């Protein structure tokens, strides 16, 4: 029935409505940023809440769009992330005259991701993908006057256009060899012929580009550094998560016949990604760039988890994404506040940070420990479960490799902690007035970092709804 459709599409619909509302607000007489921001945050919170109401499996528009508890949960995660980001960028947007455009762009891209996640068809998937990418490219350029910002946007749009061209070529060959675009039918026609493998590799490359896996990652650092913090966090958390969900979906549901191939590919990519990400992260001084590389390394671990190709694998992936949202956004939150209020974005600026801003320091530290995977933070469990999933196939080489890389990553996270707590600095960042909204967001993140790991119910729930190969 019609309202069934409405329920199935509720998350998308809410977003669409919100987008249009924002357009009207833009057209109407201008309001104060505070009111707009509060309104949006509340709306996003509602949207998030709406996600939890009822989880049903449905298939709409003859397989173009399908949804199930897992997908709904994934969208909830993205909503959560969007909400947190928007709360954290409060300080930055408060006196920015283009606040609405920012939300138009990000929300549109979010909508695109929703469509991509629940796409049941390559065409739908492609549309979602582009819909999520193009606005972000514009958003990357949000600081119109900054040189770096426009450079970042340029790099993003060009390389994503290139990658989507590659992706499309892959899809076209896939279409040529199978004659269909629908996932459910596609599986039957996959036979691992060279052309299909080639097509598949092109497809994987497209994905790898979005999740910035080595060697398709090179745009990441520059774009993260150039674009505004809010956009960076959006890129590093939400779009990555969305693409990962889709990748998981496609690999586990569609390309099952060539599982062995993509298992190897994933392992290779994972190894390269972890290593390169770590090696680059060691040297970085710009915080966003640093987090870019660290997030690349994280993706490597995620790939290991996916390569486990079991229910544990997918569950651990989603679980890790949740944790990653909390921890990464906590870190970005602090940076967002600092850069919005002082414009400083370098690790060296954070020397002696603890003396002036103990609260922020602790948030940042906990976030970093979580990223490093140290108990009792959730990151520990996330990483460990990913590795367990990876180990399930008995390929301990990659596990040992990853374990040793954890030590390297530990080093650069501790480097930051060292700067914050131990390094002497006569001109530390002065005491900052953190807006309440951002504070709340940070507390949410920290609480998430602590609780998500220790409270096993979260993982058990995810496991119950997640899919295996």
């Amino acid at each position, binding site marked *: 029935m019609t309202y069934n459709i409405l329920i199935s599409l509720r998350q998308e619909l809410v977003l669409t409505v919100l987008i249009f509302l924002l357009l009207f607000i833009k057209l109407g007489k201008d309001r104060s940023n505070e009111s707009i921001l509060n309104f949006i945050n509340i709306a996003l919170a509602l949207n998030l809440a709406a996600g939890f109401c009822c989880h049903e499996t449905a298939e709409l528009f003859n397989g173009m769009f399908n949804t199930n508890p897992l997908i709904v949960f994934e969208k909830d995660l993205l909503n959560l992330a969007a909400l947190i980001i928007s709360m954290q960028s409060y300080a930055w947007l408060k006196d920015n005259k283009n606040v609405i455009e920012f939300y138009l762009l990000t929300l549109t891209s979010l909508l695109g991701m929703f469509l991509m996640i629940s796409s049941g068809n390559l065409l739908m998937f492609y549309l979602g993908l582009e819909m999520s990418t193009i606005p972000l490219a514009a958003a990357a350029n949000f600081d119109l006057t900054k040189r770096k910002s426009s450079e970042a946007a340029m*790099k993003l749009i060009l*390389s994503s256009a290139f990658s989507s061209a590659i992706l499309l070529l892959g899809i076209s060959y896939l279409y040529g060899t199978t004659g269909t675009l629908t996932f459910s039918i596609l599986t039957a026609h996959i036979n691992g012929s060279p052309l299909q*493998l080639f097509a598949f*590799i092109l497809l994987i490359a497209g994905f790898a580009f979005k999740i910035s896996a080595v060697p398709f990652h*090179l745009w990441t650092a520059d774009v993260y550094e150039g674009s505004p913090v809010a956009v960076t966090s959006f890129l590093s958390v939400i779009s990555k998560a969305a693409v990962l969900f889709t990748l998981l979906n496609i690999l586990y549901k569609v390309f099952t016949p060539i599982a062995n191939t993509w298992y190897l*590919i994933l392992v*290779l990519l994972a190894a390269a990604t972890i290593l390169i990400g770590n090696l*680059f992260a060691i040297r970085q001084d710009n915080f966003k760039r640093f987090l870019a590389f660290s997030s690349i390394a994280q993706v490597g671990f995620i790939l290991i988890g996916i390569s486990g190709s079991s229910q544990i694998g997918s569950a651990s992936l989603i679980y890790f994404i949740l944790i990653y949202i909390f921890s990464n956004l906590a870190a970005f939150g602090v940076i967002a506040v600092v850069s919005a209020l002082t414009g400083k974005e370098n690790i060296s600026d954070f020397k002696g940070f603890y003396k002036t801003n103990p609260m922020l320091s602790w948030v940042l530290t906990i976030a970093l420990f979580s990223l490093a995977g140290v108990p009792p933070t959730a990151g520990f469990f996330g990483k460990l479960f990913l590795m367990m999933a990876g180990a399930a196939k008995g390929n301990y080489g990659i596990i040992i490799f990853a374990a040793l890389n954890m030590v390297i990553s530990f080093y650069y996270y501790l480097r930051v902690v060292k700067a914050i707590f131990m390094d002497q600095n006569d001109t530390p960042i002065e005491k900052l007035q953190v807006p309440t909204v951002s504070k709340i967001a940070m507390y949410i993140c920290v609480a998430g970092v602590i609780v998500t790991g220790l409270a096993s119910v979260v993982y058990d729930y995810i496991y119950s709804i997640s899919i295996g190969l």
Partner: protein
Amino acid sequence: MSNYLYILWIPLLPLATFVILGIFGRKYLSSIAGLLGTASLLTSTILSFVAAKQYFFVDGKVNGVYQKIVALKYTWLEFAPNMSIDLGIIIDPISVMMLVVVTSVSLMVHVFSLGYMKGEERFATYYAFLSLFTFSMLGLILSSNIFQVYMFWELVGVSSFLLISYYFNKPAAVAASKKAFIVTRFADLGFLIGILILGYYGGTLDIGLLIERFTSVHSTQFLSITSASFLGASMLTWGLTLVFMGGAGKSAMFPLHIWLPDAMEGPTPVSALIHAATMVVAGVYLVARMFPVFTMDESALNIVTYVGAASALFAAIIACTQTDIKRVLAYSTMSQIGYMMFALGISKNGGENGLGYMASMFHLFTHAFFKSLLFLGAGSVIHMVHSNEMKDMGGLRKLMPITHIAFLIACLAIAGIPPFAGFFSKEEILTAAFHENKIIYGIALFTAALTSFYMFRLYFNIFWSKDAPADNHHESHGEGPWVMKLPLLILAACAVGVGFIPFSQFITSDGAPIETHIDVVFSIVPVALSVLAILLAASFYKNQNGKSDKVAAAFGGLYTAAHKKFYIDEVYLFITKKIIFPFIGQPIAWADKNIVDGFMQWLAKITLKVSVLIKGLQSGKVQNYAMYFFGGIVVLSILFIYIWK
């Protein structure tokens, strides 16, 4: 069998004193510390005399043989079933005898110290340490378990360390204490391994059981230990030799003797107690304790014999050349202990053949008295002259008559002049040696002569040689208070008297009394030699004439060598300072910094290097990014379409 448990109090009382003085002494009891310690020890002494009386005269003997009685046995630490450290009390002739010796000598020293250490800042601490030592020594004596022996062995070592370094701000004292501890520690390592060997094959650590198993030729333990061998020697030899090594360390046998002379840095009463009468004979006691097992292995016994003999001679020669009176005494101690050792070595087990054993114990007994007497005498001399050097002394016989007499008696005793105590015990030793081994007998004889020579050299140098120094500071405090004279007198009496004890009635290798008699004909030779030596010494040193220097010059190299203690210390110094430190210690320390740790550092460095090396990948040119992108695709395609297809 009557109850001997009260013997437990003999060691416990000093322990209690130590604890009390150790904790409260410094603050509250410093005034009465001495009296407290002396009183408690007096009780112990009385108790041990009671014990001796009960054991030797009342119920020790069962149908003619003195029994080994285990009065107490408490499992203290069980390593494995029937392999455990038991704290026990063993009572047999030698342990009871040692009880008497240790307590009475220690008592004398306690009393003497009341005067000697008067006014010391750490008076209480001193008595605490004394009590600790006495406790450890008594514990060692009473041990029924070889590991228990080892424990008290270590405790004795440490308390001696504490007492030697009593003057802790005197670097020499500290160095001496370190030397003493480390050398004996090294010896104890041998002891420990010996214990491990014996315990492993014997399947027990209980001395009684060990003896029982290793002396019965057909016991599995005996067979296994004798059949097992390492580097040609049977495990029994190894075990016993290593145990003896421990003994040699404590008893300052050559070549582990180097700590003893330096140990004289401690307060003189301490030297009298530890380094004359009690601790240094622990080695002898240990061998005697394990004697039945030793008799089962010829080679081990031979080692004991020859080490003993060598030490006796070696020390005697050095003693002739030393000028520090305490060092002379130290070397004489070493020499006398050498006597006891080889006496044990040449002895056999049981009956008349056990003469050496009995003689050795006898000499231990007499030696304890006259040697502590000598030290205390030297103590009161030093107390008066404030110097250890002979050249600062001379003609003191007028100023300190009592000391003089006592010292003379002691010298006569050690020289083996009848009817003084030393005579009897030495006679027995010589007799035994004569019957068993002529070479040893020769050495013994020569050493005896040397002994009387250097003792009287000492005696004359202190009390005669020049006239009483005119300066008045000697008169100022004369000979010290009665508490210092009384022990001298008592001990002098002992030095005269104890020789007449029919020792062989009580202490023999197998507990059964044997008949011994002094063969006048036999004893002419040694006595004559001693007398000659004394006369020689008198002619050299009675009053200052250049003779001695001439003789010394005549001996030339030998003299200087002896004067330099045959350079043994230098050898040790060379080994430690020139070999162990630079060739083992430093290389390891270096390697740890630069190789082991360096490797870890290198890992970190290399990682950073690589990361700098590859930073070109991120060129910042979007076109290169696209190329890498395409390159990635190409690689993947090649890998998965052509290679792993």
